[in-house]
């Protein structure tokens, strides 16, 4: 990793990864749930920056809109409507936490080994499309029509189901 030339892309990648990883670590280590949501919003915005770095500017806007906006607000609603005052009151499961940490670290070790070992075929990075929103729209309405329509059905069903579930029992 250290023989990468010091280009602007590398510097941007480094700064964004510091934001993302520190946000994620803070999310795991904070005690209050609200602080967790705020640090997770930092992670989402960092990932949007990564998308810009990868020439996916439409996806970066979608990421900011959906994740940093909608999902964070939804989670804050969920926190406000449930009990959140006794934040991580008792910490009585050290063996469970140690086991989970060992499992996550082992998974990371396996993944890192696989990434290091694999020879990725070197190809030219995709040349910049002029307007990625236009190209994605064309792709959505030609090759991916059926999944696109299915996603709209899924969204409708999920939101109606969410309203029905969260509605107070009318008795």
């Amino acid at each position, binding site marked *: *990793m250290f023989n*990468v030339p010091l280009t602007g*892309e590398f510097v941007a*990648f480094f700064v964004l990864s510091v934001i*993302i*990883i520190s946000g*994620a*670590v803070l*999310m*795991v280590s904070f005690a209050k*749930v609200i602080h967790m949501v705020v640090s*997770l919003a930092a*992670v989402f915005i960092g*990932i949007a920056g*990564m998308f810009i770095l*990868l020439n*996916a500017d439409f*996806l970066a806007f*979608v*990421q900011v809109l959906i*994740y940093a906006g*909608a*999902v964070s607000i*939804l*989670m804050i*609603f*969920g926190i406000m409507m*449930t*009990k959140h005052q006794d934040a*991580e009151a008792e910490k009585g499961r050290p063996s*469970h936490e140690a086991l*989970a*940490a060992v*499992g*996550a670290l082992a*998974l*990371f070790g396996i*993944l*890192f080994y696989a*990434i290091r070992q694999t020879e*990725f075929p070197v*190809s030219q*990075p*995709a040349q910049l*499309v002029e307007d*990625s929103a236009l*190209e*994605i729209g064309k*792709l959505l309405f030609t090759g*991916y029509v059926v999944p696109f329509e299915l*996603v709209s059905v*899924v*969204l409708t069903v*999920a*939101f109606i*189901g969410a*309203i029905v*579930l*969260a509605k*107070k029992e009318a008795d």
Partner: protein
Amino acid sequence: MLSSYLTLAAILFCIGLYGALVKRNAVVVLLSIELMLNAVNLNLVAFSKYGAVPALSGQVFTLFTIAVSAAEAAVGIAVLIALFRARGTVNVDEFDEMRR
């Protein structure tokens, strides 16, 4: 450059996995799942630029993932609120009806 993105996504996924396994508050478990989904999205977009066959399909798949995870978050929060009304708690280790 591709392996850097993949390593970052692996770190993110493992932090999310740890959070989903350890945290007791169900909202935080949902947040950790969102973290894991974001790691997957990062992989998809990285492959759509630096993969063996660079194409826009990775970005389209990312759009689908984002849509489905938004639906999942909405339904998850709704289930959580309904459970909180019924049981008065959001700790995942107290939802144990199916064990008895």
